[in-house]
Structures are given as C-alpha cells and as structure tokens.
C-alpha cells in the first residue's frame, strides 16, 4: 500500500514537473497567509510576489541557458498557523513537485517551513521572516533578503547617540525605556537594542514585556511619565504601534524621542494624524531611498508602479517580497540550469543591487548588505532620518511638547 501511495505521489510530482517545464515555466511554491491574523500582511506579500513575477514575465522572462522561461507561483493559504504552513510546504514539495519555494509571511511561519525545505533540499528565498533564530540552525536552503530582527531598532540607539553628542550631552547619560511584546520576534528586537545600548553605556530604566493580547499600556506609560527616559522604544506588531500612539497621546506622556516598529502597517498617520507626529519608525525599506535596478527602476518607480496596480502605497513587506522573486530570477540565470544544486550555489553567491537595496547572503543565509532605515513622521509624511548617510531630512529632536 505504501508503495502505491509513494508511486502515486511521484507520478503526480513528475507530471506536475513535466507540465511546468514543457511550457517553459518555472513554478515557485508559496504558502502565504490569506486568512487568519496575518492575512493583511500576507496580502502585501502576495502582491509583491505577483508584481515581480508579472514584471519579469513582461520583460522576456528568466533566461536560463539561453532559453526564456516564465515564472509562476503556486499559492496555498497557511491560515496564519505554523502547523498548517509546514503541512502545505510538504504538500508543495512532495505532491505538487515544486522545486523552489518563496517564503511565507512572519518569522513563526518561516520557522515552521524551513526544516521541511531543508529536509527536501529545496531552496527557499524568503522576505518576511526576520527572527535571528532562523539563522542559527545551519540551514543551507534558506535565504532571506531582509534585515534580521535584532537590527530593527538598533539604529534608533545610534541616532540617540548622535543627538546626544550634538546637544553636548554624554551619550552614556542617556536613559532608555523599552516595551516589547513577549514574542520571539519582538524579543529579538529587544536583544538588538540591549546590545547597542550597552555599547554606548546607556541605561535601561524600563524593560516591560507586553502581553500578546495587549489592549492597555497604562501601567508602562505611568512608569515612563515618572522616570522621564530620553528614548522610548516600543515594538508589538501593528497592534502595539496603534495602541502605543493612541495611549501616549491620550495620557499626555512626553518623551523626547519615540521609536517603534510597524508604523506603516498600522497606518499610524492615517489613524492618528497629528498624534503620530515626530515618531521614529523602523523600516526595511523606503520609497525615497536611492536604490535602483534595471527591472523595477528606482525605489520610487517601484512604489508608483505598485500603487497604480494595487491602489495603495507599497509597505516594505511588499517591496521585500518583490525582491525575493528577483533574487530567484537572478540565480536561475547565473546557474544556467534548473538543477537545484546549481541554483542553491548561485543563490549563495548572490550579489545583487535592487530597488529594495543590495543583496548579499552570508553563510547563514541572511542578507548582510542592507541596513534598516529609520523614518520620522514629519508634517504627516514619513521622512528617512537615519542612518544619517541615507537621510532625506534632519531628525526633529527633541519632539516638541504639545
């Protein structure tokens, strides 16, 4: 019985593969959240993937060994649950015969899928799993185009050091309040902030862990008001960002510098208007950056093309997802064949400049060529203020008291 099943599966796999190659199409598989709590960001991810695939196909496809191939993506809905994601990755590989995978949305899902791709030796380029624990297992088939989580808010500490020096104060006298959600991703961000704070000798005065079903930050904010830190960093996905902005304003809490993640996915400007002013936001990417490539043009070109297509400005989740598809296309061309080993080697040797930033994978598979950027909400728009060499605008510091 077992043999029949195995035989059946391999025939299915072969036929799927035969179908794929005869039409000169390379099928990439992806389990992305279309329902459940990650469905919004899952949609951003899919839009990014789809747009890149359409652009590549419209521009002559992927040239592999002199022959043009179209790209196509086979999607499944992982329902925002890791167990389902792993199941679907298995299905994509063993039943549908997909040989290359694009990543899901979120670190948790990526963590569930990575062991499956590793087991089958299927290369996966992912764009939405930033947890640093993904890159400590020695995976050979995992490639991530984005900056990893411990870098997310570290740039805000560097910026605090710069503004302290500019105002003639000792960076070591700076105090930091931290409120991070109690999940692996946010705690990675916290670890990065702690490392950088220690580097500059800054003191951490509040270190609160926010619960997953957070609705009220008052106890933390009461502490902030009493201890008056120089910087408040908050990270708790989009819910954390929206809750923090709302309650910081409502409770009249003042900090000279406020940095957080997920400002754009929480749309804090649209929701809170002036209440979001001068908030610093960490982002993987910004449309105003000067990166560019031949396919998408500049970061700004990508943004306007995306908006024309999907009717909303691309969040960085969409940009990095598009970049992941471009990495695959580039690797197929350089490998000169569709052999998994050749493609894996080509992926590992990637040195690509894209509209999203430079991409160069280290031995663990994470992209080390692209820094995080720090926006500030200025006059109702996001302006890049850090790292200083990419800045389009000077930081407003301290935030004016209202």
């Amino acid at each position, binding site marked *: 019985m077992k043999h029949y099943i195995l035989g059946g599966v391999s025939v299915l796999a072969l036929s799927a593969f035969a179908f794929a190659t005869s039409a000169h199409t390379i099928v990439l598989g992806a389990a992305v959240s279309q*329902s*459940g*709590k*990650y*469905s*919004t*960001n899952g949609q951003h991810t899919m839009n990014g993937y789809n747009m890149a695939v359409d652009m590549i196909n419209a521009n002559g496809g992927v040239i592999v060994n002199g022959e043009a191939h179209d790209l196509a993506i086979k999607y499944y809905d992982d329902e925002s649950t890791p167990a389902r994601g792993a199941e679907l990755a298995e299905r994509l590989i063993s039943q549908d015969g997909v040989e290359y995978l694009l990543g899901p949305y979120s670190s948790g899902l990526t963590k569930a899928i990575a062991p499956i791709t590793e087991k089958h030796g299927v290369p996966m380029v992912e764009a939405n799993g930033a947890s640093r624990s993904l890159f400590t297992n020695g995976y050979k088939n995992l490639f991530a185009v984005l900056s990893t989580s411990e870098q997310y808010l570290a740039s805000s500490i560097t910026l605090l050091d710069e503004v302290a020096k500019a105002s003639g104060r000792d960076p070591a006298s700076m105090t930091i309040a931290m*409120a991070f959600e*109690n999940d692996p991703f946010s705690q990675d961000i916290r670890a990065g902030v702690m490392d950088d704070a220690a580097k500059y000798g800054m003191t951490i005065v509040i*270190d*609160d*862990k*926010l*619960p997953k*079903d*957070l*609705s*009220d*930050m*008052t*106890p*933390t904010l*009461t*502490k902030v*008001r*009493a*201890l008056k830190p120089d910087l408040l960093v908050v990270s708790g996905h*989009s*819910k954390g960002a*929206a*809750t923090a902005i*709302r309650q910081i*304003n*409502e*409770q*009249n809490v003042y900090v000279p510098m406020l940095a957080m993640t997920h400002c754009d996915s*929480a*749309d804090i400007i649209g*929701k*809170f208007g002036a209440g979001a002013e001068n908030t610093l936001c960490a982002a993987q990417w910004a449309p105003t950056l000067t990166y560019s490539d031949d396919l998408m043009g500049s970061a700004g070109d990508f943004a306007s093309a995306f908006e024309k297509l999907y009717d909303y400005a691309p969040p960085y989740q969409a940009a990095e997802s598009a970049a992941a598809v471009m990495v695959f296309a580039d690797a197929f061309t350089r490998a000169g064949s569709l052999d998994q080993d050749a493609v894996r080697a080509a992926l590992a040797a990637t040195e690509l400049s894209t509209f999203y930033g430079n991409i160069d994978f280290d031995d663990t598979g994470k992209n080390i060529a692209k820094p995080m950027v720090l926006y500030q909400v200025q006059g109702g728009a996001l302006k890049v203020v850090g790292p200083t060499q990419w800045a389009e605008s000077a930081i407003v510091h301290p935030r004016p008291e209202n």
Partner: protein
Amino acid sequence: MDKIYANIELLTSFAPTINLELIANGLLVGAIFGLIAYGMALVWGVMNIINVAQGAFVILGGYMAFFFIETMTGILPDAPHILWIVLSMAVAAVGMGLFAMIVFRLVVDKVLERDLFVSLLATFGIELVMQQGMNIMFTAEERVIDAQLQTFSFMQNMVNIPGSRALGAVLGIAAAVLLVVLVRYSRFGRAMRATSQNARAARIMGIDTRRVYEMTYALNGAICGVAGSIVAFVFILHPFQGLIYTLRSFVIVILAGVGNIAGVIFAALSLGVYENYSGFVLGPEFQNGMVFIIVPIALLVRAAIMRRKRQYLK
C-alpha cells in the same frame, strides 16, 4: 525580582500621583469590562449558558460603530463628532441586538436544553466563525475610532484622565444602571427573573420562556454593541481581539457570583484596579495571568463561606 523591587520603590516614591493614576485608570477600564460582564451574567443567570462568543459580539459591535461613524462623517462632515459617537452606540446596540437574535434562532435555541458542555462548544464555535468572518469582511487591519476628546490633567500633569475613557466609563455605568432598573422593575424583567429562578414554574404561570431566552440573548447582544463602540474609541478593534473580553467577563462573573447582578459592577471595578497594579508592579506580561490567579482563590473563598452558612452552590 530586582525589577519588581524597583517598581515598588517607584510606586512609593511618587506615591500620590502614581497611585491616583493607577486607581483612576483601573476604575475607568473596569467600568467598561463591567458592562460586558453584565451581559454575560445575564445570559448565564437566566439561560445557564456561558456565552464564549461574548468577545466576538463586542468586537462586531465595535465594527458596526466604526463603519457608521466613518460613513456619517463622510456624508455630514460638519456635524459635531460627539453626536456620531453617541448615535453609533445606538446603532451598534440595535444592530447587535438583531444579530444576537439571529444567532439565538440558528444555534443557541437548539442547545438550550442540553448540558453546559454542549452550549460551551456551540458558543465557542460561534466565536470562531465570527472571528474569521470579521477577518474576511473587515481585514486584519486594526481600526480605531477617534473620539476627539481632550485629556483632563491634574497635579501638574502627573495624573491624566483621557476624555474617551471617562466617556466610556460614564456610558458603561449608565447602561448598567438602566439594565438593573429594567430587570428589577419592568414586566419583562420580572418574567426574566421568574424564568431564571424556575423555568418550569414560569412556563406554568404563562410565561413564554423561549421568548424570554431570546430577548435575554438579544439584550446581551445590545449590551455588547454598546460596549463594542466604547472599545473602539478607548482601545482597538481587531477581529481576533475578542477573547480577552470573554475571559475578563468570565472572571468578573465568577468573582461576583452567578446571579449577583449588582456584584458585577463592584467586581469589575476592583478587577480593573487590581489589574493595573499587577501590571505596574510585576510587569505587563503578568497582567493577564494575575487576573486568572484570583479565580481559584475566589472560588475557594466562596466555597468556604458557603459551607459556613450551610448553603450550597447550585
């Protein structure tokens, strides 16, 4: 441990202001939770059903209020905002009342006579379907209503009462008082109490108990609608955010004791304050955990008191 000592030290060194703020905020938040718990207590007491879908009802009510306000401010941008806030509550109350009535006819009515486990499962199922339905209809994006109310500051800005929370608490308490009066003095309230005491006897006396159950469930829906619109301008709306409201109301009803309607408000206010203190001293990650720790304690204490009084829990 050091962190906890540091927090206690902070609490005592800024004693008047921090304590005042934690208490005030706890009371305001507690009043909102109290309203939701009130609806749960009603359904629990009258129908012997623990409505696990309570949180999803609240969130759906919030969405109704959100979309009502968004539509109305689009049509009549010049009308005073507070008018829409108040009207949105009425809209959410009516909308959720009707919604609850439909849910009752489709599901709850079928499991009324079965044991508690079946109704627990059924209402849990309703919760799941509603969560996913809201996720599909409204997306997982967080929504908030901006109440556009100012914050009241006292003691050199050290104690702050956000206008939205104050409004939420006032409306929550007003709705609860209205309900107490309704249950105690109206004809329908009398029928409700009779049904809850002895459904069979009530039926013999000519009360249409099925109708009473339906109206009770609809009334709970309306309460959730009002609470949902408060949640939308005080906290945040998200399809999967409902469960904490279910759990909190469950704890509040347990603390007050099933059938003790007046106790609900007291339990809710104390829980709000207690929660704020535990979040402050132990850290926010323990805030929810500390809420649940008091459930077994409350049950043990109540059992001990009951035994002394020679009473028993039904």
